[in-house]
């Protein structure tokens, strides 16, 4: 147990699984699977497992995404790290091939495959194509593919173990803006389930539901709101597909007020699905959603930081609801 960075925690899980399974492969471009942490050995998958198993490719996310699927179909557990530049180039093979494979083969296809999809968007100035936080909405829509988005280093490690051990193909979203988070993370392998939300704070006045990069702003806002006397329940979705309806519904049944927070665009943001499930199951719920406007993220920091949901906006929306 030690304070660990996000990437160190994730690569610890990958390293362990690769040590257990000599057939497992890892494909990357640009971002080498290397992480260091104070007073701990450097993890470098490329040097530890060699370039036959850990491959640095050209800029070809279509190949990366397809190759891990093929490796999985051939019986080798496989994962790839798609940096934000190419975050939706793999969409076609994940959506129209992987997502349908088990179903269309009548359950015969086996796909122990993980696509780590990096989401950026936290750096004002890297606008437009290098500023995307919209991948959650796209990938969570695909049946047959588990889509998860951890928000803490602890969950990032545990969900990586679970993803690599899952018989289902997993889109593992990585909000790169969270790379600076550190926390106590166990050294040993452990799993965090791929279909369970986490209740981060308990309360009775208002339920706030968010995920991934939305969580720091939500926790910040919830702390202030609590100091102001509001009893806030905070839910971290973690699993986007399949979504943990039960946790949402039991919370909203108690609070009757629901605020969703997403860095993704307003239309079809994960919160839209959360709200739909809540009002389908609980009568008399008051709802609001905070999200990025339905506009591409502009480069200008003045425009971008105003448009990005933050703790101030969340607090304002919460006060208006309660």
């Amino acid at each position, binding site marked *: 147990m030690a304070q660990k960075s996000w990437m160190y925690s994730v690569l610890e899980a990958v390293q362990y699984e690769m040590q257990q399974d000599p057939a497992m492969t890892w494909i990357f471009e*640009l971002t080498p699977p290397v992480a260091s942490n104070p007073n701990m050995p450097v993890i470098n998958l*490329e040097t530890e497992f060699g370039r036959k198993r850990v491959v640095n490719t*050209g800029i070809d996310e279509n190949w990366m995404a397809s190759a891990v699927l093929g490796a999985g179909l051939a019986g080798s557990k496989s994962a790839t790290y798609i940096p934000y530049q190419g975050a939706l180039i793999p969409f076609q093979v994940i959506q129209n091939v992987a997502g349908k494979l088990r179903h269309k083969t009548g359950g015969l296809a086996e796909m122990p495959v993980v696509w780590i999809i990096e989401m950026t968007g936290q750096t004002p100035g890297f606008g437009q194509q290098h500023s995307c936080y919209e991948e959650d909405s796209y990938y969570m829509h695909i049946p047959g593919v588990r889509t998860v988005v951890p928000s803490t280093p602890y969950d990032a490690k545990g969900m990586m173990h679970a993803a690599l051990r899952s018989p289902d193909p997993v889109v593992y979203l990585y909000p790169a803006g969270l790379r600076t988070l550190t926390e106590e993370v166990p050294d040993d392998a452990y799993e965090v389930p791929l279909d369970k939300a986490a209740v981060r704070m308990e309360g009775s006045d208002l339920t706030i539901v968010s995920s991934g990069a939305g969580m720091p702003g939500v926790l910040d806002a919830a702390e202030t709101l609590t100091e102001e006397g509001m009893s806030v329940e905070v839910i971290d979705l973690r699993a986007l597909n399949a979504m943990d309806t039960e946790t949402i519904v039991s919370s909203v049944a108690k609070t009757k007020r629901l605020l969703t927070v997403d860095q993704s665009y307003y239309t079809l943001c994960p919160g839209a699905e959360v709200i739909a499930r809540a009002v389908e199951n609980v009568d008399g719920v008051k709802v609001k959603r905070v999200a990025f406007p339905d506009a*591409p993220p502009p480069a200008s920091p003045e425009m971008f930081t105003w448009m990005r949901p933050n703790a101030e906006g969340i607090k304002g929306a919460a006060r208006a*609801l309660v």
Partner: protein
Amino acid sequence: MTYDLKPSPQTSGGEAPSSESRRGFLKLAALTGAVVSTTGSRALATGDIGFFAKDLSDEKLIDMYRTILQIRWHERTQADQMLSNPDYRGYNHFYAGQEAVATGVCAALRNDGPFDQIDLVYSSHRPSGHAIAKGVDIPKMVAEMDFRATGMNGGYGAEMHISDPSVGFIGADGMIGPAPVIASGSAFAFSARGSDQVAVVFAGDGNYAAPHFHSTLNNAKLLDLPLIYVCENNLYHQYAHYSYSCPHKDIADAAGAYGVETEIVDGQDVIQVYNAAKEAVDRARAGGGPTFIEAKTYRYYNHWGAPGAKAGELGAFGYDPLAINSFRPEREVRAWMQRDPVDIARKILVDWGVLDDTRAAEIEEEVKAEIAEAFEWALSQPLCTPEDGLEHVFAEGTVPARQFG
């Protein structure tokens, strides 16, 4: 057609490079600069391309020299801003070292006139050189790169998305892959409407690995499109040597397999680049189809920004923390800098009697002053208004704010 730029001591035999041969490859790449640097002007060695530069007016040649200098001093001035001005927020994927490629190609294009008659340029990464060579307003480009409301694109795009269709600069693309395919679509439109315009795409060696490279060339040849694919092979894509993503030493070998005309040029020599581009443009305008030009060149800075560089000095030699497993040997950078596109252009023009050393130096001072003024103007421009971020989503109107619930 292809020809050897230099002797090829390494024969890959078509096998994928092992780590052993990759080291040989890196040595060869470093050597290339050194070997070529001893050969002086190579202009006359390109026997199989027409020497079209003989027909250029002195005025045009001086314009080309001036363009190279504008790009060079834009890059140097911006790098200095990044390194020494804590208030400066802009950034670049620097083009320094590659100036002769954009300049030589754009000198062969139609850059003035109505939009439906000028040639179109697609840039991918390192767009500032392509933009300047195509004729964008430099102060407005500088303002855009620092997110100013009066910038070329109102602060919406910044460096990776600069665009000015009025001069045929369709613009940068922050992604590796799509630009060439889209450029082929413009070429398709020219062909379909019977225009003699041509479309040019600048893309790096990294684009080879993307499926888009292959789709572009296949369709351009199948439809004989007026497309010129300028592959700027600067040896590195992002932080990796191109031997990680391409088994060929000459990427033109792969392009030739699609039946496209290919030429390999010394990308440090603006005259050679111009000659190749002129031949390609003439072919395309005459309905002769696409050309693939591989310009062997080099970037003086690292992939992004100015890590490893020092204010007031050209080039980056230090360690780039992002280049974890493949960073550029300092000797390789210095070997390439011996064949500097500015020096080569100046020497040719002086040798040809187009100008003398004194005039050449005066022009450089004029350009430095022009670029300094551009930065001064740009950095005094107003910042963007936050609410304007909701505009330009559709042709009309604004979208609602959603960040406050």
